[in-house]
């Protein structure tokens, strides 16, 4: 049996030689969601409404109805989410290749920079510098931006000011480069979006969305526990709900890394 790789993988997890790290926030109404100008349509916040709890509405069982947007909590962005990916094949969560749901990840630690500057931007130079230490980012990898933003309280996490959100993210140039020159599978962040808080003022606006989805790549946001993953050598398991023509989905993101 040991020559069965799948069993070997499971055995490694069972025996602890591989760690499973939960990279997901609890789906809760307290979790900030993306804020758009109020005249636009808004994402539903998370709502959990009890159907019964061993009571007159169901004496022996407990269950809830939940309401979520496709982009609430820890969630996955499919290419169809952005206009740049709207015409691609297999661009929605129900049609994307399941092979993409298990893939290796690189984790770029920018936590010190983000702590110093909420508007910290990841640049190509920063990544190239990272590659000097950890090796070239290989095709088909997730690139995860570790900022420790997930450790902040809700107000600092959203960090809204009069001129909008101030949260770290990638600049336009690095996104185009990661997609075209490194052929990454997707880009993941701890913040509300894959783009920086001020990303709407970049050229093009929201470059992470623009370039990732335009090339059929994916986004992950509201990740946490990225500090428990190694810079390289971990894999992500990312299985969005199979929503008909879904643009994204809340999901459980698991990281698997050597102990």
């Amino acid at each position: 049996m040991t020559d069965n790789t799948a069993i070997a993988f499971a055995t490694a997890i069972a025996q602890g030689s591989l760690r499973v790290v939960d990279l997901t926030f609890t789906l809760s109404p307290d979790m900030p969601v993306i804020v758009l100008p109020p005249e636009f349509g808004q994402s539903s916040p998370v709502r959990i409404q009890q159907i019964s709890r061993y009571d007159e509405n169901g004496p022996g069982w407990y269950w809830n109805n939940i309401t979520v947007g496709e982009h609430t909590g820890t969630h996955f962005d499919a290419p169809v989410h952005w206009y740049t990916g709207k015409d691609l094949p297999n661009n929605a969560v129900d049609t994307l290749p399941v092979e993409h749901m298990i893939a290796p990840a690189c984790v770029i630690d920018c936590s010190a920079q983000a702590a110093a500057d909420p508007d910290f931007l990841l640049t190509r130079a920063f990544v190239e510098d990272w590659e000097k230490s950890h090796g070239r980012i290989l095709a088909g990898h997730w690139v995860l931006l570790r900022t420790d933003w997930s450790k902040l309280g809700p107000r600092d996490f959203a960090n809204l000011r009069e001129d909008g959100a101030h949260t770290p993210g990638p600049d336009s140039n690095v996104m185009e480069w990661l997609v075209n020159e490194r052929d990454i599978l997707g880009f993941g962040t701890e913040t509300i979006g894959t783009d920086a808080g001020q990303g709407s003022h970049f050229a093009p606006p929201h470059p992470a969305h623009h370039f990732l989805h335009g090339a059929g790549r994916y986004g992950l946001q509201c990740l946490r526990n990225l500090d428990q993953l190694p810079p390289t050598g971990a894999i992500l398991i990312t299985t969005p709900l199979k929503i008909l023509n879904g643009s994204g989905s809340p999901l459980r993101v698991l990281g698997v890394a050597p102990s």
Partner: protein
Amino acid sequence: MVEPLQKPGRKNPLDRTRQQALPPAGRSRKGQLLTLAAAQGRFALQCCSECGLFCYPARDACPNCLSADLPLTDAPNGGTIVSETTVRVPTDVYFRERASWRIGIVKLDCGPEMVAHLHADCYDGERVRMSLQLDKSGQAVAFARPTEKTPNQADDRQWREMTATPKFRRALVTNGRTALGQAVAAALKAAGAEVYVGLADPWKPFPGEETLKRDHHVVPLDVADERSVQELAADLGGKIDILVNSTEHVRPGGLLDRRVTNAVKDEMDQHHFGFVHLAQAFGPAMRARGADGVNSAAAWVNVFSVYALANWAPFGTNSAAQAAALSLSHCLRGELRLGGVRVVNLFTGPLDTEWFQTVPPPKLAPKAVASAIVAALENGTEDVFVGDVAEDVRQRLLANPKALERDLNQRIS
């Protein structure tokens, strides 16, 4: 002389909370005309359209000319007390608990004699100012007050049974993020209440935040989220004497120029389901505390758009959400009445806020709504039309609802 009301101390946790008994509630159909007047704070009686006789008690025919045309008509509110008594041994539980109770006969300047509740500073032979009030059963009663200002007039024991004064009461204002919510909180505090202000999405900053947090207890509350409301009620439910539902979620638009229901659903979530959540979470405790001393549960206040009564197509789905909540308020009114807690509905025209930016004046300052809320609580009214637009809609609804419907439709260009 009325002794000034004293701030109540903490309750003895060994004492049972006194349950609300209600005064006699039976009234004839015609008698309910006076309920209509009392709800709006008017002193009005039936007046014969043929012979001009003011009639009281309510009748189905004029006792002078037998005309059946006896419309409710605003009446001069002056009168003179011609006899009085102090009822010390009432047969009814409500009054027995509150005995002794002063009543009198008032000869009204406009004609009829009226048995009335007497303010403590009104005596036999004196001139009085009459009003129709809603008692704890929600029914109209006549009340005689001094014609002049007297010390601590509003603290009169019998008068307080007719009102829901904020003094020494604890109020929850559901939305501190808006100018309206902030104005209401400030006005209630100025009227002597301790104010809790709800705040949804506390991570979103907003103007006035610092002042709000300095002056009031800011508590997490997202009315559209059942759990949030229930969790707050678990903490505060037994302490809220006045709840002001100031939810204000306005988005322009009718039906045909919107292709998704999302915004419409948001309006219903805020106005309709928000109301449901608040009622189910806070209503039972309020209903149980209607007779709980000086700071008993007293009132539930709703701030509605007057277009809850007649759909205004440019804000058509909002009007519908308001209408849904208005209907709920009537349900709640019946349910809370059992606990002696009144439901006060304010109807407003467009507020002077960003969502009515393109609407031409007159527009209503949030402060005006806040003042109207305090006045309604202090005067004991139930249906209040605030400002010129609301009053305009009220009058046109009475005159010709179809004409109003056409007019409100045609504003779409």
